[in-house]
């Protein structure tokens, strides 16, 4: 026990600075004595979790498992390494589709997810009309699985079909890969549930022109370091979820020389560059798999309470922990609150949807809101709200990202490694920035703002993790 006595011997070396939690009278008594006191704004944890929290706290594996989880996330080196298709990389076959969020069937799927599935069925030639697609899907004629179960992530509806081109992201530090489709832009697009002819036409162009151009660029570049790009974009005013303007610009800057030298039709090159420049969220579909490549490296660490995925399917909001394998813990997806585009009201907004919360899971997005004062309008309109959002996230995370630094916070690393037990202890929920999808299939994006994850998902995750922890011994309150 005297291996590291230095710390405690300091206890007696003069009046200690004290952190207090609990009875206010005891803090007041210290303050009256002139002691430097930091009182904790303590409150009881979510009801019914006290015993589970204690069991997790006592789990001898926890501290090391959580350290490892955070270490793996922050040491990840996600690089864009190539292009593929869902069929080729993920083994997706005709009639199989991936979607965002935890598992769901057609019956429970919301408007945008249904719309995107209809569009994807039309794209794959499984149906000739939307009506036909709908009736095939309604009688169970399609096979659905979460993107997260297949090394992929998808924004909004996140629907992936076999022929779709995908970015291949490799985590060079840990060897795992993640994939995402290419971003279609704003307006009427598949990921928001649109399936009109222009949507299908654009998807065909993306497969025929955009994807080969991307393949040519990455073939020339070899790899593209996405961690470095995220790091730079954070210093240029992006938080990488609702604002990807700087990152998308950096991306174009990186690929254009290769595109020009690739021997492509100059008209195609111009179309490709114009397309990307016209879509400030183009980088999101690189940022998301980069984030997944980082958090996937932290999976399957017994005892760890670190969140490795947060995702929504438009009906449920689900989370996964490093210490609970592939289990999802879900609660109802909430309707985001924020700014709606002109012409839309709250009634037009769909409950929260998309795998893009992988950004927050990896410590950016809402967690790095302080880096993106330009978009504070989405969360209340004051720059101080952005600072508060990020600062409060340090209370539920276990690490600070050594690369992803936030200038306004004196270059402090962004808060990373969400600890589900801290969420349950404090009641502070992850700050999630998100786009808002229209409720009716095909409406597209109707706004952007903040969404509150359901606390019960974190509660259930904590209860399940506790079940896996060794029992504490037969003690009862003495």
């Amino acid at each position, binding site marked *: 026990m005297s291996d590291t006595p230095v*710390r405690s011997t300091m206890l007696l070396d*003069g009046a*200690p600075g004290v952190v207090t939690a609990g009875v206010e009278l005891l803090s007041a008594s210290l303050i009256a004595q002139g002691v430097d006191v930091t009182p904790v704004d303590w409150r009881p944890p979510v009801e019914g979790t006290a015993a589970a929290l204690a069991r997790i706290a006592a789990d001898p594996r926890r501290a090391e498992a959580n350290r490892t989880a955070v270490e793996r996330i922050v040491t990840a080196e996600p690089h864009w390494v190539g292009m593929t298709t869902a069929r080729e990389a993920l083994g997706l076959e005709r009639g199989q589709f991936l979607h965002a969020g935890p598992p769901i069937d057609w019956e429970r799927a919301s408007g945008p997810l249904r719309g995107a599935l209809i569009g994807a069925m039309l794209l794959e030639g499984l149906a000739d009309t939307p009506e036909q697609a709908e009736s095939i899907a309604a009688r169970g004629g399609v096979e659905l699985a979460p993107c997260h179960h297949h090394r992929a992530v998808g924004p909004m509806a996140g629907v992936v079909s076999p022929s779709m081109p995908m970015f291949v992201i490799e985590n060079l530090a840990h060897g795992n890969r993640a994939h995402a489709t290419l971003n279609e832009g704003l307006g009427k697009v598949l990921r928001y549930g649109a399936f009109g002819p222009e949507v299908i036409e654009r998807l065909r162009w993306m497969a025929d022109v955009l994807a080969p151009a991307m393949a040519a660029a990455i073939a020339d570049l070899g790899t593209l370091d996405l961690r470095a790009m995220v790091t730079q974009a954070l210093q240029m005013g992006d938080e990488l979820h609702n604002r990807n303007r700087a990152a998308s610009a950096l991306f174009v800057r990186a690929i254009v020389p290769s595109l020009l030298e690739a021997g492509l039709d100059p008209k195609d090159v111009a179309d490709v560059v114009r397309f990307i420049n016209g879509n400030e969220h183009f980088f999101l579909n690189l940022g998301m798999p980069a984030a997944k490549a980082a958090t996937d490296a932290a999976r399957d660490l017994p005892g760890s309470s670190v969140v490795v995925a947060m995702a929504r399917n438009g009906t449920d909001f689900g989370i996964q922990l490093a210490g609970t394998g592939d289990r999802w813990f879900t609660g109802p997806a909430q309707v985001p609150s924020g700014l709606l585009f002109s012409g839309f009201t709250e009634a037009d907004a769909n409950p929260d949807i998309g795998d893009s919360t992988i950004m927050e899971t990896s410590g950016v997005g809402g967690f790095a809101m302080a880096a993106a004062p330009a978009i504070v309008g989405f969360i209340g309109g004051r720059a101080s709200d952005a600072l508060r959002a990020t600062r409060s996230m340090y209370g539920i995370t276990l690490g600070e990202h050594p690369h992803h630094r936030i200038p306004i916070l004196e270059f402090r690393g962004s808060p990373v490694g969400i600890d589900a037990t801290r969420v349950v202890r404090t009641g502070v929920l992850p700050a999630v920035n998100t786009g808002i999808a229209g409720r009716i299939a095909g409406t597209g994006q109707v706004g952007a703002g903040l969404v509150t994850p359901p606390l019960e998902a974190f509660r259930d995750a904590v209860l399940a993790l506790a079940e896996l922890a060794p029992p504490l011994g037969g003690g009862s309150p003495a």
Partner: protein
Amino acid sequence: MIDHVEVRAGHYADSVTLMQVSNEVARIDGVDAAIVAMATELNRELLLGMGFVIDGAGPDDLVVAIRAADDQVVGAALAALAAAMSPPSATPSGPSDVRPRTVSQAADPSRRLALISVPGEHAFVEAIDALEAGLDVMLFSDNVPVAQEVVLKERAAALGGLVMGPDAGTALVAGVGLGFANVVRPGPVGVVAASGTGAQLLTCLLDAAGVGVSHVLGVGGRDVTEAVGGVSTLRALELLAADPGTQHIVVLAKPPAPGVADRIAQTAGRMSTPVTLALLGEGRPDLTQRAAEVVRAVGGQVPSEWPTWGVRPAPGPAGRLVGLFSGGTLCAEATLVADASLDGVRANVVVEERRRVQGLGPLDGHVLIDLGEDEFTRGRPHPMIDQRLRLDRIRAEASTARVLLLDVVLGHAAHPDPAAELAPVLEEVLRDAASEGRPLDVVISLCGSRGDPQGLERQAERLVAAGAFVALSNAEAARCAVAIAGGAG
């Protein structure tokens, strides 16, 4: 001159930061040139122009190029680089309107101790959090399961930390009173206490005898049990032994489990600081005798009489002894005194099962109750803070009691003016007894020091004015009350 060139792939920092870092590194004695920069084309040319050779670095990679006198200087330069590039250790400047919600969130290098008093079922989680954040812990909370205490103390031992508690009511660290603690003069005596009010009384008696205290480290009443193994007692002993201001150590505890007693004796025997093992219990010296022993051990003068206030009541007709305490150890000590002279004494501490009382149902015979026991403090403030429960009890018992024996504990965190609350009720019950022609006396054990914020003299005077006899020594108060209950002759 040697060149050190390394490429750190994928490490990005902005150019302003890197210019500052380069300057820091270049300032090291013996460094001829230093460039820390992103390997943009411009910077690669600059480096090449200075004669540095770099391969395979791109604009996303950080290049460190140092030209220095020898390897040692390169080492110093790299250390300076690491320091200049590390994230700020201080919390961000500017006001933060985010209040910490957990102990670890509030922990920073200027904090050394967490004082945790959240409800017992949540205390363990906060305490583990504090230890892992590098803080020592005083765990005021009670109702903490013993299995959690065992794990907590194992973890503390592994991390080199100290856990005081659970159910540690009292500590005094470098002059700061934590929880219930009296304002006593600084001095040579360090106390390791498994008993909070025991430590309070001991330090108050020492103070009255002119002997000061360095630190009081509470360890919680269960620390010396077999299950817990005395982990915190041993750690506290080591800390006090290493403390230059502590010249004599007192370990205040109930008799430990045999194995634990051996370990304490072994640890104490290894230390150069003398240790008084002050074990409490039947057939052992009381706290007042222990205080005298310690005063003598440090070369002080034991007072011929410990302070009392008011007129000592003379025994008359025999009758019921009713003891209503806020301090557990004070209650236990009084119960042992009573048990030695009176028959059929019942209590909620110390005595064997068949004489144990529970709750606050109707009572008869001699009875002593510690109102600070867990059963009375669930969801209710401690009686040292809130006397309502005791005041009700006094009113209920006074009509059948011959003598009321009460403790009043002063000091930090205790009620700001307990006598002001207690005195009117005492006046009321004494008046009622007198009007009915019943003999009733009130004896008070006043645990306080002259420095306490409530004012020892002022409290004593108010209680005397209400008709009570007041003694600083708990054993003396108990003997006085027992004599009254036993009757004259």
